[in-house]
């Protein structure tokens, strides 16, 4: 960028303006405004950063870097495991890119922020309809941190010291949960699963749940894709001992699967990314958080919540942040959580997405995913040595594919698929679940056409025929 230019982002850099303002303040140099920074702490050299680039140069530079990535657009991708490839209707981006939404701050002044507030209220309301809960907050960072916060909330409510989670859980989610509750000196136990069906082993769960249990957490669909059907039983085991029942969800399943509120959930968490948000290399995501409507629960909720109200005059409906006395800027060290900046715009994207799909669309989405997944499992099972799924249960959009009988490692098959056939297979889970042998977790959504699936099958078959 030519040096003489005033930077486009800094209007008062124009020497005359600067001078005029300095005159007004009564200083000769801007450095006089920094005289209170002790001399020995002054940074005297130049920051070791690249020279400023013009917009055109920035654009060229970054586009070149991004071109070095192979996106799911070019390489059919069957990865899921916490971040899922779905189609995002064009309307979603056109709304969330509107600068009135994009460039606004947290709606601390509700009167000129009604648009964002109402959109977030609508998001919360739609999440309540999906989950069967009465209240949802306006977002958490992601599913993992939402789970951490949910367990902390349970402990605030019942002051207990242990929590039970399923053995089949995403490693990141489990690790995040550990981090979030480590300061509480909590003890986590894992309930085993049935080797045939994958379902939670109710005996194992029962053994672990006691008067010390703050909460029982299950996921539906499970991390490995099958649908957890013993939900009522799990809820009963939790509630019998006075523990909270927390359910983790993939919301794209909730057009076809029962709302967790209908089988006893007290708190629902989950990942909202698949509702209109893109992969973005794993972030931003969108943490769902909802709970039942009892005041004692609501008071312990983390995060921002938008509520309906009226004007003081009472002539109009309006929206504003509610229950701020739970939050850090008011309650400080006694706040329910430290979260303030959240994933609001992703929540708006999800509200737009759900509004576009509507009740029938969400149901069709779920059905379409189940059919395609079923088709993919059927096709892959035709390949010699391949077994899918490992568990004899209905699956939603992810499924285990086992390669033990092919005599090859899941990782090496993955590499061949990618290098030779330009297809991105599933995620190898052999390290997370050594007991499942050479297994990968594949994902199919409505964004995969029959052609994509057939191509996967043919390529996988060819890849397995190659030398060991």
């Amino acid at each position, binding site marked *: 960028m030519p040096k003489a230019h005033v930077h486009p982002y800094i209007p008062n850099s124009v020497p005359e303006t600067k001078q005029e303002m300095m005159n007004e303040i009564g200083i000769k140099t801007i450095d006089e405004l920094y005289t*209170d920074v002790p001399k020995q702490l002054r940074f005297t050299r130049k920051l070791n950063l690249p020279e400023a680039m013009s917009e055109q140069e920035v654009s060229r530079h970054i586009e070149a870097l991004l071109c070095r*990535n192979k996106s799911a657009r070019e390489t059919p991708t069957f990865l899921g495991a916490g971040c899922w490839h779905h189609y995002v209707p064009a309307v979603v981006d056109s709304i969330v890119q509107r600068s009135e939404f994009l460039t606004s701050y947290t709606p601390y002044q509700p009167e000129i922020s009604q648009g964002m507030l109402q959109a977030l209220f609508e998001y919360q*309301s739609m999440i309540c309809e999906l989950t069967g809960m009465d209240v949802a907050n306006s977002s958490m960072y992601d599913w993992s941190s939402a789970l951490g916060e949910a367990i902390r909330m349970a402990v605030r409510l019942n002051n207990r010291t242990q929590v039970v989670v399923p053995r089949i859980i995403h490693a990141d989610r489990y690790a995040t949960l550990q981090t979030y509750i480590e300061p509480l000196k909590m003890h986590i136990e894992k309930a085993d699963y049935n080797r045939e069906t994958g379902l939670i082993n109710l005996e194992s769960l029962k053994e672990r749940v006691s008067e010390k249990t703050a909460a029982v957490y299950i996921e539906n669909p499970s991390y490995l894709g099958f649908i957890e059907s013993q939900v009522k039983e799990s809820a009963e085991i939790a509630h019998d001992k006075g523990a909270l029942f927390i359910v983790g969800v993939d919301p794209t399943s909730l057009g076809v699967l029962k709302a967790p509120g209908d089988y006893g959930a007290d708190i629902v968490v989950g990942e909202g990314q698949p509702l209109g948000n893109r992969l973005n290399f794993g972030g931003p995501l969108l943490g769902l958080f909802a709970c039942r409507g009892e005041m004692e629960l609501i008071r312990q909720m983390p995060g921002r919540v938008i509520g309906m109200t009226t004007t003081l005059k*009472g002539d109009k409906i309006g929206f504003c942040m509610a229950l701020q006395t739970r939050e850090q800027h008011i309650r400080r060290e006694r706040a329910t959580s430290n979260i303030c900046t959240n994933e609001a715009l992703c929540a708006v994207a999800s509200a737009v997405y759900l509004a576009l799909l509507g009740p029938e669309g969400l149901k069709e989405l779920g059905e379409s995913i189940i059919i395609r997944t079923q088709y993919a499992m059927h096709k892959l099972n035709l390949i010699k040595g391949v077994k899918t799924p490992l568990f004899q249960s209905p699956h939603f959009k992810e499924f285990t594919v086992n390669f033990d009988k092919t005599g090859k490692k899941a990782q090496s098959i993955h590499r061949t698929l990618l290098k030779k056939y330009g297809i991105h297979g599933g995620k190898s889970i052999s390290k997370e679940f050594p007991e499942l042998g050479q297994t990968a977790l594949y994902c199919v959504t409505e964004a995969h056409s029959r052609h994509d699936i057939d191509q996967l099958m043919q390529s996988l078959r060819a890849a397995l025929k190659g030398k060991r």
Partner: protein
Amino acid sequence: MYRQAQWNEKVIFELGGKGRRGYALPSVEDDVLKLVGSPADKLPKAVVRSQPPRLPALSEAEVVRHFTRLSQMNYGVDMGFYPLGSCTMKYNPKINEELAGAVGITELHPNQDESTVQGILEIMYTLSRWLAEITGTHEVCLQPSAGAHGELLGALIMRAYHKFNGDAEERTELIVPDSAHGTNPASGTMAGFKIVVVPSNQNGTLDLKALKASVSGNTAGLMLTNPNTLGLFEEDIAEIADIIHKAGGLLYYDGANLNAIMGKTRPGDMGYDIVHINIHKTFSTPHGGGGPGSGPIGVSKELEKFLPVPQVAYDKKRDRFYLDYDKAESIGKIRSFYGNVAVLLRAYAYILSMGSEGLEEAAQISVLNANYLVRKLSGIRGLELPYAKGRPRKHECVFSVKSMHKDTGVRAMDVAKRLLDYGLHSPTTYFPLIVDEALMIEPTESVEKEELDRFVEALKKISEEAYSNPNLVKNAPYNASVTRLDEAKASHPKTMALSWRMHQNRNIIKAASS
């Protein structure tokens, strides 16, 4: 005067009609359907949904109109001055949005093979090195999703450090000044610390005597923003660092106010051990009405081993970027995957656009603008600048309308609401807590002098109004989408309606005209 759109837009559940849809899915191929059969048969009875969720049913155009109307009832940086103190509402460059919309980032799955994501890994790696340079730290972790998330991570690292040294049982106290952001004590508590509050002295900076009296063998560390929330540089920072370190504690930098000092001084050089950076403040990424943000932290060499996994790393031999999971004493994970990458990409573009001189100039002009406001606002009736008069502010300044309140009954919130009528966003109100009737003003470097002058004129006018017709100010705003809202009603257990279903079940919130 300003007039915001007033659409009286209904809640979306009241719009649309049965059978309408805004988006049609591709239909499943016939032979696939034939092969697989009906999806309903595949579902276990115990979890089948009997009725679809009660979502609204709208056509595509209805959805677009609804949300477009809502957007018109929302004020953003692109519309005008947004001087929210400690929020650094600078301009969000358009080119960064365009780049963040490229498929080379939007369609990248986090579990893709390293060979297919070298471009984004390079961007992340390079950005982490730049942030380390700007903050004077050794290693930067990009994972935290927001400033408060970074604070939580920082506090957990403090805990891990003391545990590593075998004295976590004693070191249970985290010190924060009374002028601190609310997140500091909240994050400290989440990480298991007891919060010890140290008062500010009469100059508005940390009281050294009180600090010395507060440290002990129980001290885990101190969280301190610098410049502080009054916009004053903590000039005793070297001594403060010394006191904390001698006591065996760690010093944590709350990066909310980093914008003022880029290229002028660095937290790492001041003696800070852990530093968080608010990407969505200092590095220009849009706030999106509350998020997504990004809050990387930088740490000293000694603390590097505690960072969460994975770190983005570079293997010189293979000339490859990779995700490094090898951290001996890692605290583990604080979220899924690697951070808010789409936000980080925008920051990378911003730093390229600015260069080192541009960043320093941004800092300088943000400080020039704040001090210009101090000068121009001083002397307006009812407005006072508490603490350290005559000392330069950094990026922000805090005025008090205590005397206006005493004279006229007009409070800081009333002034804030009246500003909206002039088409200006209000400053942060009632913060920091050590200032009565506070207006915390942060202009940033993106605003032109004329807009600053317009803000000054508006406050002058509002002061006149307060002294001549206080009710005019107390009942503001008049020109926003709605007049002043009853915020207490939204939070009262008897009237609260936190979702559409809650509202329908209780049917308490009603408006006279609708």
